[in-house]
């Protein structure tokens, strides 16, 4: 059992008319242009789009790493706009999990310490049973005392996934988690994340440019020029590619 209060709503995260602008007048750039999207609980979501489409911006804003210019963003039933810096930090700690493309781990901490990091920061005792289960799921039991420099890229990403899962967040945000991995390690990570959604009802939102990665998701949202332009359910690599090609014309 985590210490977080279970949310009433069925959406783990939500953006409503989210816009993010940089610059003014002639030099104005609309990274996000009135994006509204729901991410339901217990589902594996993917966000795709060419570079400059705003997919990373959307992720950063929903995850509380950046602030919108206009619009609202919710994690569970917490409106991030109403929070100050400190509260935002708490939300990231207690309600969100992160997996980045690279540099996911603190070099001075061992794997197990990295996995327990968010809970340590909160000063909470980890749910050892749950943590053990997570570790088992990602097959890391024999690497727990190693430091990141002693782990391969694939192993490091597994630790990151374990960390994200360990604190039982409302939603896990993954930004190109397989970007730096070979195909075998990629498949491993994506399988684990799929498993987390299926077995533990974890909600995952993943940004990716890789159609194969996207095919692991339950639903793919396509962005272009800061707007949502398409969405498909139960994707396969072919259906995803088809949409990309269509958008490219």
């Amino acid at each position, binding site marked *: 059992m985590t210490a977080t209060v279970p949310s009433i709503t069925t959406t783990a995260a939500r953006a409503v008319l989210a816009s993010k602008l940089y610059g003014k007048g002639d030099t104005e750039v609309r990274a996000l242009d009135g994006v509204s999207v729901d991410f339901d609980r217990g589902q594996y979501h993917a966000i795709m789009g060419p570079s400059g489409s705003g997919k990373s911006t959307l992720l*950063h804003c929903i995850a509380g790493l950046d602030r919108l210019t206009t619009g609202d963003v919710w994690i569970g039933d917490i409106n991030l706009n109403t929070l100050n810096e400190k509260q935002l930090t*708490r939300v990231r700690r207690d309600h969100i999990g*992160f997996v980045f493309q690279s540099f996911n781990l603190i070099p*001075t*901490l061992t794997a197990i310490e990295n996995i327990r990091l968010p809970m*340590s*920061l909160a000063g909470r005792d980890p749910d050892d049973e749950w943590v053990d289960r997570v570790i088992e799921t990602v097959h890391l039991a024999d690497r727990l005392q190693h430091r990141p420099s002693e782990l391969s890229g694939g192993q490091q990403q597994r630790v990151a996934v374990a960390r994200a899962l360990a604190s039982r967040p409302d939603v896990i945000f993954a930004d190109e988690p397989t970007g730096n991995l070979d195909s075998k390690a990629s498949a491993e990570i994506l399988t684990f994340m799929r498993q987390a959604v299926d077995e533990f009802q974890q909600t995952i939102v993943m940004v990716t440019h890789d159609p194969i990665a996207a095919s692991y998701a339950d639903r793919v949202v396509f962005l272009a020029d800061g707007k949502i332009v398409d969405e498909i359910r139960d994707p396969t690599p072919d259906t995803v590619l088809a949409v990309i090609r269509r958008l490219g014309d």
Partner: protein
Amino acid sequence: MWKVTWKGLLSHKLRFALTAVSVVLGVSFMAGTLVLTATINATFDDLFAGIYEGTDAQVRGIEPVDAQFGPGSAPRLPVDASALDVVRGVNGVAVAEPFVAIPYAQVVDGAGDPIGGGVGPPTFGQSWVDNEDLNPFQLVPGSEPPGVDDEIVIDKGTAKEGGIAVGDRVDVLSLLPTKQYTVVGIAKFGTQDSQLGASVIQFTLPESQRINGMAAADYSNIGVVADSGVTQEQVRDNIAGAIADTNVEVLTGKELTEENQNEVAGFLDIFNRVLLVFALVALFVSCFIIYNTFSIIVAQRTREMALLRAIGASTRQVTTSILLESIAVGVFASLVGFVAGIALAAGLKVALDAFGLDIPAGDIVVPPIAFVLSFAAGLIVTVVSAMIPARRASRVPPVAAMRDVAIEHRHGFGYRIAIGVFVTVGGAALMLFALFGSPGNAIYYLGVGAVAVIVGVIVVGPVVAVPVSRVIGWPLPRVRGIVGDLARENALRNPRRTSATATALMVGVSLVGFITILAASTKASVADTLDAQLRTDFIVTGGSGFGVPLSPAIGDEMAALPELGAVSPLRFAGAAVDGRGEFMTALNTETEDELFDLGVSRGTLGSLDVDGIALSTSYADDHDLLIGDTLDVVFPATGLTSVQVRALYQGNDLGLTGKLLISIESFDAHYLPEQRVDFFVLARLAPGVTTEEGAAAIERVLEPYPTAKLQNNAEFRESQEATIAAFVNLVYALLFLAVIIAVIGIANTLALSIYERTRELGLLRAVGTTRRQLKSMVRWEAVIIAVLGTLLGLVIGFFFGWSVVLALEEDGFSSFDPAPGQLVIIVIVAGIAGVLAAVFPARRAAKLDVLKAISTE
């Protein structure tokens, strides 16, 4: 390469500035010292030139004893009055006037507080010489020279301070009881109100002689003005030819001026060197800061270096670019430091003025050597410190441009331990040899050994840093959770850097620790010695420490008091014993057992009489002397005299009785009248008399002598301790700079390493570390480093203190006091310093924009 360097510097101005700060501080201290010393030197040169401007020659007594310590220890023999007529009759002499110098004379106000002189400058008197050339003082309008014996002329500075006008009656204190005089004149010294703030009272000649206790037939010297057309050398030679007395010498005015200038210059030279040592310590500490900064710069620019190498730059070109950067920093910092040093010296000059030194509004003297030395020091320190990082930069393999290679040199620790231990032990051995083996020039061996110990520990530093930091940081994870754990791990992750930062602080702290222990041991030893040697109830002193000497009349009057049982004055002066300059102590040998417990092991003090001497057992052993031996002693008044060793006692330099003892009778017989002054008078109550009665009686005796102070044993000990404490505080102040630089170094290193860890800090913030937690992490990291450096420093300081005290054991250091309380305070202060050092870096870490941080390359 210049362009790469220049662009690099400009794009990181803050980093550039922080690196430069430590060098600027060290250089400005050095430059300031040199400039200040040169300025003071020039000031005194001008002073003496002004005093002796009109003097063509001077006839004076010789210095009978070539001893160099203490007041009244190297007086000149007086000139016999008969010489005056002889000199006046010499060919080429236009004017010859007698002169008497009074070492101590001071105007006091109604409450007995002195007027004039200020904190530093002396207060003395002299006879009025009615000749413009010979007397550098000029009367202001409305003034007259002193005509009768109760008239005086005072300097304008003293007049201003006391609000004294011509016609006023004032009290003057000398070694004789206070006497009232009429001020008939106020005099200026050239354009100034006084001679560099000194208070000078001018009496008539007979009155001057009376105050000095001189016979009417004696003068201090005779000043001579030559006829026009006669050179100084000529008139000197003429006079020398005319005088047969071998106790008299003649100098030209120029020789006299130079002699005085050289004496001051000699003292200032020592002052200069001592300050320069502290400046060098500060610069030495700067080395670590620079080394660290450039190490971090190189680590950050690994990719850039690799790229340069990949596209064809040679290793030498890469090294050069780093060195060029260090040269640029060094030049900039040295120039700024030099200018700051001049400003510092100017500021100090103003401060000295405020203390009463009436320095003429002359210019600051900036000798070329000040520029050359400080500039060179700053530049060398910067470039040499950057050399190791520069070489490391060149070793970056070109392929590192493609990969994210973390270059951690984990090799070579065994080598390091071996060299470090060797140097440390070698240095310690050298120090012990210097202290216990008494070779010639022991101080140099001591210095080299001390430096070697410090360098050795620095070399071993990274190896030691890991376990020690782990221990220091042990409570952190328990007390502060993950934040504490991260702080400790951060301190451990780069032992080289942690060690370099910590050892910068270690250098300063080792010296602070050493001084603290030495002072505490001195205090304890002095207390022990006084307790052992003295059985007094009262001690009369002339002010603090050695202060102003007391008139012998005080001792005589106290001896006559019925309320006191035993009374003994204590006098000190120098003499040449078997060719060596030694310090003699004289006391009333009849009070041997009542006032003193000197551990007399052979003979008795009562047998000393006029021609006997007592030696401390250590002195006797050192010089192979036994009871009954005869010593050839040169005394000022009697010249070469034989004295017989008649007693041996426990004596050392820390007690009041030194290593050589004679009786008061002997002192009076062998020393000049003006040396018959007491520095202390010791007294014991007569049986049945209460302390209050005894004190009251003594106070009555002391009434005419406002500067005399009555203390009991405890008060006396406190005032001795206060003197030691004042000295220690001065040394602390001088070491303060080195410590400040080290603390800045901690801040600098932290700030740069935060910059280096931007991505990691961004990650921490992303997963939910609050700003406060981040700040706390940085703060604890700083504290660990600060405490590490301090502990290492205290260990070294303890070793230094212990070995020195042990070596001085027979010189009276009976007590070794490691001052644990003070050492603990030092450690706590270090922790606080760490917290302060972390303030800006922590703020910087907290201000990181999370998004930007995690996206950093």
